[in-house]
């Protein structure tokens, strides 16, 4: 037998030490993983282990100027069955069939299917859900959920917008104020095993949802409703493609009504109106049609403004001093610019007329001359001063920008046509916003709907302030413009909008759609009242009317009628207009 030697024993101690050092460093590594990296791995594994069920947050309500609810939530129920928990399948089938009015065969299939959770029906009215809950059947679950609901169906559809399946805004104010309205979804976290089966006795982690904030807007349901009726009537009478009406407060930019008929039903936004059948349409075609149906022409589309634009040309020329109200012009029925002969609406010509009369007659040669007096550079600088090339900043998505010649490409012909509102395009909203500033004393406004955001329990979260815009015109010229435009309605081309006892300013327009000569027109009227201190300004466009298409003939009277009905509601009083006429002269 051999004896182990000292160096052997030393070796053992070294080996043992190595082992212990190795184990200790592994413990260090463990401590690092378990303490320092614990959160990191926990977060990753939490995702893996838990099944998340969302609890939808209630979306904020939208109120109009009177506090009327125009967009809200409806509680709906989802009825589902949990196979493992059902005790009396026959009773369950019987109750669900009768309450939900479903075929027995269909329900039986779902009830007898071996799944963790089988949904029987969604979007069930709350009253029915409550009734089913009262049966207290084991294994039947009634989960409440929210669905966006618009009490007025199609009212201001293109303004309000609607929400999608995840309760997210899709168009309109619902998109623009998404962050305020949407709220924060809650969650129910349940532990599951690798096969996805919920672990029975594990505690549920519940995170309560936070309801969205309420939005208060300046739109007035009563005015909107009436304007929609009026617009619809005209559209039918004139067999027009579309009629738009925009009413706002020219002093602060609050929009009272924005109508684009035909509107669509917000509670069924994916149902195409004006189309008999969707058979044979590809998904893309269908989507294009939907997008067209949802389009808000007042802000999303540009058009040639025509004679209404003379307000802007006039204001620029007066401000620049290149013309005065009493300057006289001569109209032979046309005006030659370079090699082009541009016609006046009145082929025989207006003869000799003052600037004011030229405006009342909507005489093209007058405004061509005024425009030429301004010249390209000065005209263009007024374009910028009047912010015509900028977006208005309205609180709706998808605002279109003005399409305008570049100054370097603008010759005299272009300048001449621009002077009376042709050869460029703006949105009705942009046009009306600039005119608001011209008639309100010269201050630019931001057109808007949103007034205030309040929390679900009524606390003010945010007052939506809109900075007072720049001064774009002198008070004096603004007053002159008001007076001239008042005369357009009281005596000139817009007299069909005249209402006995009220002082109304306005301007008509009839623009031929491109390509010229196709006989398609947009007839329009812009009006405001009271003429000396406007509280309301509006524009109406009739797209492709059949038959008579003059703005002064078909748009002006409708706007007049609309004004006549809403002035008392708005508290705009009758005034004596005669005195003011006297001051002008």
């Amino acid at each position, binding site marked *: *037998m*051999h*004896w*182990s030697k000292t*160096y*052997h*024993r030393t*070796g*053992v*101690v*070294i*080996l*043992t030490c190595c*082992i*212990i050092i*190795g*184990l200790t460093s*592994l*413990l260090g*590594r*463990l*401590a690092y*993983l*378990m*303490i320092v*990296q*614990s*959160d*990191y*791995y*926990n977060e*990753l*594994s939490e995702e*893996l*282990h838990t099944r998340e069920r969302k609890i939808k947050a209630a979306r904020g309500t939208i109120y109009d100027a009177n506090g009327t609810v125009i967009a809200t939530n409806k509680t709906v129920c989802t009825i589902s069955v949990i196979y493992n928990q059902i005790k009396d399948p026959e009773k369950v089938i019987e109750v669900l069939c009768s309450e939900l009015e479903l075929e027995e065969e269909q329900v039986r299939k779902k009830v007898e299917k071996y799944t963790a959770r089988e949904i029987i029906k969604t979007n069930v009215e709350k009253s029915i859900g409550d009734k089913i809950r009262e049966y207290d059947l084991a294994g039947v679950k009634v989960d409440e959920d929210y669905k966006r609901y618009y009490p007025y169906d199609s009212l201001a559809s293109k303004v309000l917008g609607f929400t999608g399946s995840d309760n997210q805004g899709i168009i309109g104010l619902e998109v623009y104020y998404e962050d305020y309205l949407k709220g924060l979804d809650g969650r129910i976290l349940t*532990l599951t*095993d*690798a*096969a996805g089966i919920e*672990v029975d006795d594990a505690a549920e982690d519940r995170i309560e949802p936070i309801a969205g904030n309420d939005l208060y807007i300046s739109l007035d349901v009563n005015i909107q409703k009436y304007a929609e009726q009026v617009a619809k009537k005209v559209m039918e009478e004139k067999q027009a493609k579309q009629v738009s009406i925009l009413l706002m407060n020219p002093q602060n930019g609050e929009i009272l009504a924005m109508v684009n008929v035909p509107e669509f039903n917000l509670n069924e936004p994916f149902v195409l109106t004006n189309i008999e059948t969707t058979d044979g349409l590809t998904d893309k075609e269908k989507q294009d049609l939907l997008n067209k149906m949802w389009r808000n022409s007042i802000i999303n589309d540009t058009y040639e403004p025509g004679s209404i634009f003379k307000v802007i040309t006039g204001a620029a020329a007066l401000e620049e001093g290149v013309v005065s109200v009493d300057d006289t012009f001569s109209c032979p029925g046309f005006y030659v610019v370079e090699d082009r002969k541009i016609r006046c609406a009145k082929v025989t010509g207006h003869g000799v007329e003052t600037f004011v009369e030229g405006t009342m007659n909507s005489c093209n040669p007058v405004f061509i001359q005024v425009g030429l007096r301004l010249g390209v550079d000065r005209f263009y600088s007024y374009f910028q001063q009047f912010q015509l090339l900028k977006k208005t900043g309205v609180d709706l998505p998808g605002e279109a920008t003005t399409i305008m010649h570049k100054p370097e490409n603008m010759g005299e012909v272009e300048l001449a046509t621009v002077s009376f509102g042709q050869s460029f395009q703006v949105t009705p909203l942009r046009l009306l916003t600039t005119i608001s500033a011209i008639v309100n004393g010269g201050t630019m406004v931001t057109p808007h709907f949103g007034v205030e955001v309040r929390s679900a329990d009524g606390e003010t979260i945010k007052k939506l302030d809109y900075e007072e815009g720049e001064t774009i015109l002198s008070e004096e010229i603004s007053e002159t413009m008001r007076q001239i435009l008042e005369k357009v309605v009281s005596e000139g081309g817009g007299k069909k909008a005249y209402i006995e006892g009220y002082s109304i300013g306005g301007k008509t327009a009839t623009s031929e759609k491109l390509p010229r000569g196709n006989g398609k027109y947009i007839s329009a009227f812009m009006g405001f009242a009271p003429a000396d201190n406007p509280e309301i300004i509006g524009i109406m466009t009739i797209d492709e009317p059949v038959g008579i298409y003059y703005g002064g003939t078909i748009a002006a009277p409708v706007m007049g009628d609309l004004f006549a009905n809403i002035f008392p509601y708005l508290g705009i009083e009758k005034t004596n207009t005669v005195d003011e006429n006297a001051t002008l002269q």
Partner: protein
Amino acid sequence: MAVRETNRTIRKQPNKKRSLLDYSLICIVILLSSFGLLMLYSTTSYVDQIAHAGNAFYTVQKQLVFTSIAFVVMLIVSQIDYHVYKRIAKYIYPLAIILGILVLFFGKEVNGQRRWFSLGPISFQPAEFAKLTLIITLASITNYCYLALKKYRVLFVLAVVTLPIFIPVVVANLSSGIIIFGIALSMAFIASNKKFIFVLSIGLGLGACVLAFKTGLLEMILDGYQMDRIYAWFDPVAYSSTNGFQTVQGLYAIGAGGLLGRGLGESVQKMGYLPEAQNDMIFSIICEELGLIGAILVILLFILMIWRFMVIAVNTKDFFGFMLVIGIMSHIAIQLLLNVAVVTNTIPNTGVSLPFISYGGSSVLFLMVEIGIVLNVSREIKLEN
């Protein structure tokens, strides 16, 4: 008992009838095995309940039977004079080589690898047998070459003896091969007084590994799946759906443990998320349920066991017994180190079970046999003292 020892007993300690077993080692083994069974139950009950018609005890029952048999075997072995192994070494050594080669061709194929012999309900892994055989063989050889131990030649002899056992095992199963290599290295390190050459060769070996990886040589040597595991080792989360899957799931478990753990039985990862949770990865479940504190206690228990081995080895006068203890000690220590290193992603993933705790019949049987041998060696100390 050999006559010679009995005589010595009578001569040196006439008052004492018989020596006692090393009870502290037995205590540690019992503690570890019971703790292992408890954790095994905790780990497997959820999955068993689903897989075996509500029988949550399915796996742990089997392991309890294995462990009990193994424990009895340990007690029997502890009564067998370890000197007999000197004589049987020349029989079991060729047997281990033959079994190692046979399993490559006739073993039961699992996941494309043949590592097991299947005899009805009993599976037997020749690698486990090879480890024990190597320990006994190397102890015998060093004992035989005792007088030449200071020469380099002995190291050469040891290498030549180890290779035939090592090669078939490493072909079948890289991790068992590494363990065998580790055991041989440790035993040679102790037996030889040329300590420096080991430090040098370990340094060179590690350098060669890094070099081999950097130059792409390693890719040619290793199988594709082994290479993938190395890539997964660097960034397991990036490979979490493929080769890093098990590692990442293990890390989830460890990370979830924190300082105090989720509590006994509260593991989530055991619910089907962590593959081989009852086997190679059981340590991560221990971490998840008992936290860092639990992990430290388990490691401490192992350190105690290794400490016991050291005490026994140092006190053994007989060189053969000494070498046996060294071999067994390094076997258990290497397996422990590798297992914890794999679980913590300190080294690339390779299947090594945790001694006394992981599920497995042949593993626990051979471990108990080894403990029995150590107990018998320790017994002589008492006689000598």
